């Protein structure tokens, strides 16, 4: 499977980050980040708590502003220009740790909201697309329920479907399974693996090392706001180079 995945990686650059720095007030949270993501790549980001993983991927769709350097997503540079931001956001889907579904809308409405209002898709078409993706994440029968009526795993799958409905070219995941009970983690990971197999460009912050080994092209390890090490998953897990990585892996895997 890993091979199949590799084959889909094209030369095209999906995300290009150069010399990016970010501060929260006085606190230097991201330091000189440089990375390039090819279209079709699946990248797992890991690292200790507070190392800036969330901040990094939130910068990619401008939920956070960076102060130095350049982030180019799908050919659009993220500057203060609202038009660019809108463009990037409609190309990039994001799945959060706490799902963040809209509790006052049904599952279907959650999925059709953005296509209708942002992409201006006719309602009927949007609903068809939504049902397609809901079927894909295996919960078409829940379409008319409200988020509060679903289990955590189901909610997270809806969140993935909701992002997919915008037909994004890149998906960002911020610890999508860490708020879930063990049984539910699997459901969500399965969905993500399926997505990966279809060649979606994915950046995923996760500590699920099994997932990383199964689908990632590359694992990035961050600490103190810096990229400390990146490598192919097999190499990364079996043969970490830096001391910091070794320490981290011993904790994670020993746990």
């Amino acid at each position, binding site marked *: 499977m890993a091979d199949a995945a590799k084959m889909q990686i094209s030369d*095209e*650059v999906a995300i290009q980050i150069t010399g990016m720095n970010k501060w929260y007030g006085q606190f230097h949270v991201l330091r000189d980040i440089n990375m*390039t993501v090819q279209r079709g790549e699946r990248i797992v980001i890991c690292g200790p708590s507070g190392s800036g993983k969330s901040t990094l991927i939130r910068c990619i769709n401008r939920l956070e*502003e960076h102060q130095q350097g350049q982030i*180019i997503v799908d*050919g659009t540079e993220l500057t203060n*220009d*609202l038009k660019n*931001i809108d463009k990037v956001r409609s190309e990039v889907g994001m799945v959060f740790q706490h799902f963040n579904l809209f509790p006052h809308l049904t599952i279907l409405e959650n999925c059709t909201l953005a296509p209708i209002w942002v992409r201006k898709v006719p309602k009927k078409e949007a609903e068809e697309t939504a049902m397609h993706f809901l079927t894909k994440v295996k919960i078409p029968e829940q379409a008319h329920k409200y988020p509060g009526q679903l289990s955590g795993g189901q909610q997270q799958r809806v969140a993935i479907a909701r992002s997919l409905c915008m037909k994004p070219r890149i998906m960002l995941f911020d610890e999508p399974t860490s708020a879930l009970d063990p049984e539910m983690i699997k459901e969500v990971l399965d969905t993500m693996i399926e997505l990966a197999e279809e060649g979606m460009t994915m950046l995923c912050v996760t500590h699920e090392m099994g997932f990383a080994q199964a689908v990632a092209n590359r694992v990035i390890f961050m600490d103190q706001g810096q990229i400390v090490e990146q490598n192919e998953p097999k190499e990364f897990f079996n043969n970490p180079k830096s001391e910091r990585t070794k320490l981290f892996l011993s904790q994670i895997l020993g746990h």
Partner: protein
Amino acid sequence: MAFASDAPKDGFRLSMLIYDTRYRSYTIQIVVLVLFAMAVAWLLNNTAQNLAARGKEFNFAFLWQRAGYDIGQALIPYTNDDNHFRALLVGLVNTLVVAFCGCLFATVLGGIIGVLRLSNNWLIGRLMTIYVEVFRNVPLLLWILLSYVILSETTPQPRDFRVTDEMIAAGEEPAASMILFGTVAVTNRGTNIPAPLFERSLGSVQIGFLPVSLNLLAFILVIVASVWANRRLLAHAKAVQEATGDRPVTWWKSLLILFGPVLALKFALGLHLEIPELKGFNFAGGILVAHSFTALTIALALYTAAFIAEIVRSGILAISRGQTEAAYALGLRPNRTMSLIILPQALRVIIPPLISQYLNLTKNTSLGIAVSYLDLRGTLGGITLNQTGRELECMLLMMLIYLSISLIISALMNLYNSSVQLKAR
């Protein structure tokens, strides 16, 4: 590396004012500011034109003209020869006094009702619920009008107190008599209460425009001193408790310290009460508390108490049962649990909404208009406005004063809130 990106464009384009996050908010703010300034300018211009058209000008000099009217309840010296500003002050003091008394009674009453609503006594619980619902859901104005009518309709006229020779001869009792051991007379005009008088006076000093009685000052000083001494006593008791574990009995010492010096001073100055007495048309001597004041206070207190009761009730309910159980499990008695565990926590929940009720009450004192109570609105916003025809100045000044009171109270509230914030991660 075949990605096509527009080369980063420098330089400023007009569209950036709207589409660039950096400038966008400035653009909006400047537009808002300009609109606001225009609106203000428009209003000011209109006002100026209107004033000119009516041959009026905008100044506050009228405040220093002779007021010429009398005020029934003046807590600072005032005659109709004083100026409008002084009348304003009298009104302000009247407002504050009603607000203070109202808050005091509302808190006591609301506290009691709130606690009783939680009692497991079914009857009392129901009665209190009815009280709260009835008072909350009917306009305050009705309560004010009603309590005024009740007070003036159910109380006797001063002449009903009169005892004439014929009546003595016939052995008749007067139609009404004074209460509280013959010291207080409640008539349909007001409540006459005894006034404190001194045989030996220390005189008085003039502070600003207010004469302050030295007697009063002496009393305040002595009371402050005794309270301070009592706190020392309690602190000492606490120290003893901390050292030995046993708390010494303090209540009789406290009583002695609190009341001894005051009593001594009373005898030293020869304080006695001037009992009101029926003379001519009215009771003379003592202090007359007008019914407009009493009715307003009662209505405000009853109405606000209903809201405070709810606040108290939900404040206590907000403290989880677990806290009580934990305290019981540690062996604390119910009353100690209340004072050491429940109340300190409940107060944090209760006080902020309580203070906003105080604020409401203070603003609602302006309804004294319904019973012609001469508060700030009645003097400055009523008779002064009427006699001088300066509605713009009077209304603006009045709003400003109310606003200052509100802001001061809410500033205090914020201070309190930040000081009792529960520490959390």
